[in-house]
């Protein structure tokens, strides 16, 4: 029998029992929609985690001023600055260390003309931008003389620049931080949100020396809140961490079992853990979704078996007028594949719509990829063929006289 005949016949068979056909398709549709949506959302989650990791900087350790114990009372980590600029300089001398950036931040009011903005002003050094992999959109970074002379210069984050200057170029303008004038020498490229959901662009950078001597005053002295350390490559992170730990213990006179007054965190490790968690999650979601595809396939098989039983006499009659077993096989197989194909198309539409809704609700950037569409189509057609084959074969093996006598 010709394909167009098979299609016509399966269309007719599907119309006879509309409700049943639609319900069978529904199973397939839900399966495909689930697979498409899960793959898209999983990919979306992974790419946002990946971009956050990339925005943090790579191969990075962060040393934070540790918990101080005073009279048996333990204070929060970082509450008392115990790290010094000299610690940072000492770390820079360690093997395997590529860059070191000390940092101290404090909230400040920034004023430009009639506009003002409250943000975190951060003292740091030129290495900071390298470690964070953070390019400048305009202007230049801190020079060596800026660092030495504690110059009143600032680099603005995008959010700060937008709030103070609108669309105008801030480089070369003078802003006031804590009532003192600062020359804007650079503008950072936009970076987006951090892991914790903070706006990383809402910041102003000044030289650490300036921050210590002129901005934050005596409360900090020579201390810094944290020191960022970048290793030359990922494999060096662990040895560098051990070296930094040993060096700081020695410099801070911490012996043996004493708990250190600093804390070393390996952010890349954390981030990688988060990334692999999302990978496993999306794999799991995809797996669960494909189970629903298989369930849809079983639904098709179930209905096709019923259909073959119901139409046994029809099969006998068709054989009597000249249908070969392959014609009967083709007829029922085509019906099963048609049901799953239509269900699949509906599922693609529903899945795509679900992705749009998820994107809007959770502010994600999930995309239905061509590969996930292809996978769904292939799998659902395969499922239709696989689960349709047994009933179709059963029909094709019927003996004509017995089929004709069937009540």
């Amino acid at each position, binding site marked *: 029998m010709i394909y167009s005949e098979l299609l016509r016949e399966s269309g*007719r068979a599907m119309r*006879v029992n509309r409700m049943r056909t639609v319900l069978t398709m529904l199973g397939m549709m839900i399966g495909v929609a689930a697979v498409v949506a899960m793959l898209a959302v999983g990919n979306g989650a992974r790419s946002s985690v990946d971009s956050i990791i990339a925005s943090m900087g790579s191969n990075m350790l962060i040393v934070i001023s540790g918990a101080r114990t005073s009279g048996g009372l333990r204070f929060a980590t970082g509450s008392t600055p115990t790290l010094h600029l000299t610690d940072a300089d000492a770390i820079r001398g360690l093997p395997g260390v590529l860059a070191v950036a000390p940092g101290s931040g404090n909230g400040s009011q920034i004023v430009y003309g009639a506009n003002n903005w409250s943000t975190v002003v951060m003292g740091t050094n030129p290495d900071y931008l390298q470690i964070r992999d953070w390019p400048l959109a305009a202007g230049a970074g801190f020079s060596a003389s800026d660092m030495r002379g504690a110059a009143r210069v600032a680099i603005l984050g995008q959010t700060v620049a937008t709030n103070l200057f609108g669309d105008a170029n801030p480089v070369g303008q003078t802003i006031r931080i804590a009532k003192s004038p600062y020359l804007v020498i650079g503008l950072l490229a936009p970076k987006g949100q951090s892991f914790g959901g903070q706006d990383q662009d809402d910041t102003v950078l000044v030289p650490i020396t300036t921050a210590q001597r002129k901005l934050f005053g005596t409360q900090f002295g020579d201390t810094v809140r944290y020191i960022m350390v970048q290793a030359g490559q990922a494999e060096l992170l662990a040895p560098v961490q051990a070296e930094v730990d040993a060096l700081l213990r020695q410099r801070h006179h911490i012996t043996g079992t004493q708990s250190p007054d600093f804390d070393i965190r390996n952010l890349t490790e954390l981030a990688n853990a988060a990334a692999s968690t999302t990978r496993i999650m999306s794999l799991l979601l995809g797996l669960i979704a494909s189970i629903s595809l298989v369930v849809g396939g079983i639904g098709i098989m179930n209905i096709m078996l019923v259909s073959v039983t119901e139409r046994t*006499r*029809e099969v006998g009659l*068709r*054989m*009597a007028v*000249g249908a*070969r077993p392959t014609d009967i096989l083709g007829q029922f197989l085509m019906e099963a594949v048609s049901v799953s194909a239509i269900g699949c198309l509906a599922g693609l539409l529903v899945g795509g719509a679900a992705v749009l809704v998820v994107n809007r609700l959770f502010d994600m950037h999930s995309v239905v990829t061509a590969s996930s569409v292809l996978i769904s189509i292939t799998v659902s057609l395969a499922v239709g063929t696989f689960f349709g084959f047994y009933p179709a074969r059963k029909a094709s093996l019927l003996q004509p006289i017995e089929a*004709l006598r069937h009540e």
Partner: protein
Amino acid sequence: MAPPLIRTEHMGKSYHLPAGELQVLTDINVAVAEGEFIAIMGPSGSGKSTFMNLLGCLDLPSEGEYYLNGRAVRSMDVDERARLRNTLIGFVFQGYNLLPRLNAVDNVTLPLVYAGVGRRDRERRAREMLAQVGLERFMDFLPPQLSGGQQQRIAIARALVNDAALLLADEPTGNLDSRTSEEILAVFERLNRERRLTIVLVTHEPDVAAHAQRLIRFHDGRIVEDGPVARRPQLQAGARP
């Protein structure tokens, strides 16, 4: 001389049942020439239907041989037998066996679909055939909307649409009243006369058998009578006013 359309040599059929061997047909030797109109009679269980199934290649003999158009049916494969049913044989059943969701034309085109005839051609031939059996006004009706006689005419049109040479009718008038039966039998007689169609018809009723030229009577799986139909005068006078 051309070989007979149908020839059986010691043909028999037995079934293996849990209760033991069941011999349904024994030593059937029949030859049917093209253009014959044969009635098959016999009590229930005498093997008439099995004989018809074997003639129609719906089943295979377990003993002997059956030659259709000179070819041994037992040596054919499934597809070849399907092809014979498609091109050479037409079936008419007591219960019509129409597909209820297809209209008259689509029911009649069914054999042509399996013969690979194009859609246009198919419909034309189906309409012609339906016109020949007097259903030109009911082409687009569904079987359940039609009377028994009309449904049986659709079945006849379906049996003959692919130019079958052999029509096998298993109690075709069994579900019909006597007037409609006469109409259907008149159609058979006309087709037998005009197309030289070979007809083998199973019936319980002598009135129906009287339309045939030759009568084969079965009893307990054997042929007990094979000869020309006795045209009883009172029957002919009584049946036709």
